[in-house]
């Protein structure tokens, strides 16, 4: 009888310790989840992260509202003014809308296309273009603009 009692106590303690182990395992789970959070947040903008605010510290709590809620596109047009076209002659008509679909979005095929050597050379030309500082000063002076530049700041 005494033996049975002892066995019962030992059994109870064992069960208790097993329960403690499980509780600890569950307790540590969120830390593991948090570690993988940055990967899951791929594609989020700073703004979305800011919106989530304190929720960032507890990844198990989703943000109060969907992150893209605010960026829902509002109507773009609404007035009566017509845009001017810079095409003045038939000769330049073919240069109108290369790369864009009827909604003005850049076609996927253009986004994935690789630039040619000529494109790279043109980019280099753009990069090497320099305005003569004396000419810039005269331009600023002619337009009665501010001749003083802002002080350079350390890189952020």
């Amino acid at each position, binding site marked *: 009888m005494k033996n049975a009692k002892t066995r019962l106590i030992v059994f109870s303690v064992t069960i208790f310790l097993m329960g403690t182990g499980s509780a600890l395992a569950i307790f540590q789970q969120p830390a593991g989840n948090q570690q993988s959070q940055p990967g899951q947040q791929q594609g989020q903008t700073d703004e979305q992260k800011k919106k989530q605010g304190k929720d960032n510290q507890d990844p198990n709590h989703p943000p109060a509202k969907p992150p893209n809620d605010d960026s829902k*596109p509002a109507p*773009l047009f609404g007035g009566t003014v017509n845009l001017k076209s810079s095409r003045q002659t038939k000769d330049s008509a073919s240069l109108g809308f290369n790369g864009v679909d009827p909604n003005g979005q850049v076609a996927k095929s253009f986004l994935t296309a690789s630039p040619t050597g000529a494109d790279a050379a043109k980019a280099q030309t753009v990069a090497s273009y320099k305005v003569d500082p004396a000419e810039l000063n005269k331009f600023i002076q002619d*337009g009665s603009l501010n001749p003083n530049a802002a002080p350079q700041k350390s890189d952020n």
Partner: protein
Amino acid sequence: MRTLKFTFLLLVSGIVSYSAHAQLGDAIRKAQNNASKAKRVANIYTPWSAEQERVIGEASAAKLINIFGLYENQDMVKYVNLVGGTVARQAGRNVPYHFAILDTEVVTAVSLPGGFVFITRGALANIHSESELAGTLAHEVAHIDRRHLEKEIRSQKASQFAKEETVSRIPQGAELVNLSGEVIRNALTLQVSRDKETEADQVGLDFSAKAGYDAAGLRNFLQFLSQVPASGENRKQLGLWGSTHPPFNERVATLNSLLAKYPNNGQLLQDRYSWYVNPLNFSKAIQATAAAAPTRAPSAGGAELDGIVSGGMIVLQSGRLAEGTKVKIRVVE
């Protein structure tokens, strides 16, 4: 009795061990949290070096030129660089800015890392003054000054380069191609976060006002665009800007509230804009004729030059006359 004692000891040690584990778990969790936070901050805000910016910007510029083409009218390119250079002088970060014109009717402006700012032929055709151009370019300069696109790319971590922390190497080969593709995809298809757009509007307004331009330049241009009806051709021209920026009306409202802080004595420079950006300059056919024509000596008495009235000024079809040259006008039609 011995068994009971043993059980009691076991129980006590279990409780002590639980408490120790709980405390240890807490400490580990805190450390993991801090490490994770620090890693996120490092990934987003470790800036690219000037050389990395230049290489990535130039490769991205080549891709952008591949899509739209480059408009190479020398006078207009110089003018855009002069206006851009004037506002960029008010930006504090030491970046070599390069301004260029994309050969498309699409109305937009794009900035890339490394100081590359592109405005389109379509945008120039619908801008009415130098202050509007300055405001538009200043907005793009502000994006570069605050490294907005770079931060977006780094936070998305879509490429290996963007995932790395404090990288010092220069991307090249396939990696550079992928990275520039990522930059252009972001610039042309995704909306930069709303707070960054608002910051660029605010900072850009400040740059153009400090440069001496009418602070309302960008507001005026956006207000004009907001009044455009949604016809097919207009949609084609404005769709890109609409998909990568907040709605015009919202930005106009924000700019209106900011404008109250600025004096109303900046330069509009409508005439100078019309002098540089005029219908003749947009015409490929006339450009070609002008390029082929021999330069006429402005001092040669009796020389007949063709021109057109644009923006209240006479714009010559070919070449320029020196300041102070006396002319007699004969109206043809």
